[in-house]
């Protein structure tokens, strides 16, 4: 096993890059087959924004306050719009159930027979998925953000913006490896849909998708801080809006990187173990 690993490491980077590019390109072509799906999906994505605008306008009016936990009506709407971007990176529709299905119907065999790494292959597929989707969706995204520019406090400074981009990028990878790990549970329990349900539910509340996490009471923030969910939606938005003090910025990103590494390791470990189990018991 090690001998081949060494051998494979000797493959020049150029050849590897070509391989990745071809996988990416083919996966992108596949995504483009579903053009109609795109159009509708993009449109539907913006509907919740309108609800949020009405909802928070009403809340602020009713409370008679101009600020709730450091958020004005405008920044809270900006927050929701920014979490849309975070989630555009970190959400992985169909990844977990897709892996589970492949395990259940035996399609996983393909990755045992062919000299290709399943997690790497799926990751490239996901990059392609996102890239195709958002090359098209960028037009309506820019348009809507332009219309709503009044809600935003303005562009952040360069280091903050870089941190924002980094947190989006890591959010994508973290989302991928968390959901991949969940999907790989299918090696032990064939059905993972209830697990996905629980994950989605937790993620909805604890990632900041539903409301900004700093609205939570202190004890709840304590819980949120020791979980990885906040990096999926809250963190990039909070960074952009300057909610994370600059001295904490890089610590937060470092912690996120640790979570990421932990989930990469977990997914790898589960894949190795799962395959062993699969080949030992099933097939």
């Amino acid at each position, binding site marked *: *096993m090690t*001998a*081949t690993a060494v*051998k*494979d490491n000797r*493959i020049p980077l150029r*050849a590897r890059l*070509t*391989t990745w590019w*071809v*996988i990416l390109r*083919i996966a992108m*072509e*596949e995504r483009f*087959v579903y053009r109609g799906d795109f159009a509708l999906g993009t449109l539907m994505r913006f509907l919740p924004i309108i609800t949020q605008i009405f909802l928070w306008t009403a809340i602020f009016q009713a409370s008679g306050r101009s600020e709730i936990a450091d958020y004005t009506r405008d920044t809270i709407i900006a927050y929701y719009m920014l979490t849309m971007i975070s989630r555009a990176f970190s959400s992985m529709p169909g990844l977990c159930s897709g892996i589970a299905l492949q395990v259940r119907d*035996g*399609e996983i*065999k*393909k990755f*045992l*027979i*062919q*000299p*290709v790494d399943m997690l790497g292959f799926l990751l490239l597929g996901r990059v392609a998925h996102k890239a195709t989707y958002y090359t098209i969706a960028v037009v309506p995204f820019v348009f809507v953000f332009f219309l709503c520019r009044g809600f935003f406090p303005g562009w952040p400074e360069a280091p903050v913006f870089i941190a924002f981009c980094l947190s989006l990028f890591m959010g994508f990878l973290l989302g991928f490896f968390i959901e991949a790990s969940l999907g790989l549970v299918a090696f032990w329990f064939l059905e993972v849909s209830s697990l996905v349900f629980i994950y989605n539910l937790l993620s909805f509340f604890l990632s900041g998708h539903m409301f900004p996490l700093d609205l939570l009471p202190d004890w709840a923030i304590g819980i949120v801080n020791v979980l990885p969910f906040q990096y999926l939606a809250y963190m990039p938005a909070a960074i952009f809006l300057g909610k994370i003090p600059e001295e904490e910025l890089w610590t937060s990103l470092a912690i996120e990187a640790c979570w990421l590494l932990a989930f990469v390791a977990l997914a790898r470990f589960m894949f190795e173990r799962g395959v*062993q189990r*699969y*080949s*030992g*018991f*099933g*097939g």
Partner: protein
Amino acid sequence: MSIIEIKGLKKTYQVYQKKEGLRSSLRGLFKREYKQVKAVQGIDLQIEQGEFVAFLGPNGAGKTTTLKLLSGVIHPTSGTATVMGHTPWQRENEYRRRFALVMGNKNQLWWDLPAQESFRLHQQIYRIEGDVFQNTLDELTDLLDLRDLLQQPVRELSLGQRMKMELTAALLHSPEVLFLDEPTIGLDVVAQHNIQQFLKYYQQKRKITILLTSHYMKDVAALCKRVVIIADGLIKYDGSLEGIIESTDKRKMITLQFRDVIEDSLLAALKKFGDVTDIETPRVKLTVTRDVVSRMLSSILDDYQVDDIVVEDPPLEDIIAAVFSEITEGRVNQLADGEFESIGDGQGL
């Protein structure tokens, strides 16, 4: 050393026994009963480079399990196997680049894309040089007559066309060993024939080693000189197809077309030689043992006017079915690998 060497290979599955009813389902949450399924119970086999071997056996005999073991998808419970010197279930990339597995009921191509794209992907995964890839692809698409279909999404292809594409994908990296699990399942007679012809040609030209499982005896008769019968996870026969027919079936099927209406006296005369299986005046079908064929024919031809005679072996399917049921009843004694006269036309397709 043989290209495939299998020694004492065993595979036992644990299968969860789910009983009927809600109550036992609930109980199953806490305490599960497992049944041991011995899929392969100790197989010894050697296959030489360039052989085309058929695995036959009733459903659940252990054929597919053996192929899965050899392609490294599953670990054995005990025993050893090497293919081209590699232990399959170590799944070394070096090994994975040298064999291919095609399953007739599994799709490996990208459903929504033209097959050409899946082929490009295989080129990358198997790291096939550009010109080698193009030459191989040209050769395969010519042989299988696929040239005009390469740009069509796979989902729009017929089953037969898709199977040809699957074969092409599997052969792009020029595997030295090919495992085929029912490659012609569900195909019509013409498509089956095309695939047989292709496999035959390709195997002879490239001298690759092929292990095939199929329930279509026509595939086996057309392709494989060597047949391995597996039942209950054990090898019950290893030899030529003809050997099975010779040693297990002593019957011939005869169809006689008479000039006139068949009278009772004729029927009585025929029944002396064997079993009359079908009468459609003026045609009669009967089954007789081999040793009486010539005696019967000369006797009938002397006394009656006959327009046409067909003498054939029983359909291969029938013979194999008989062998399988004998095996399962444990009555098979050492089958001899004898000489052979003529293979039946496999009419019961």
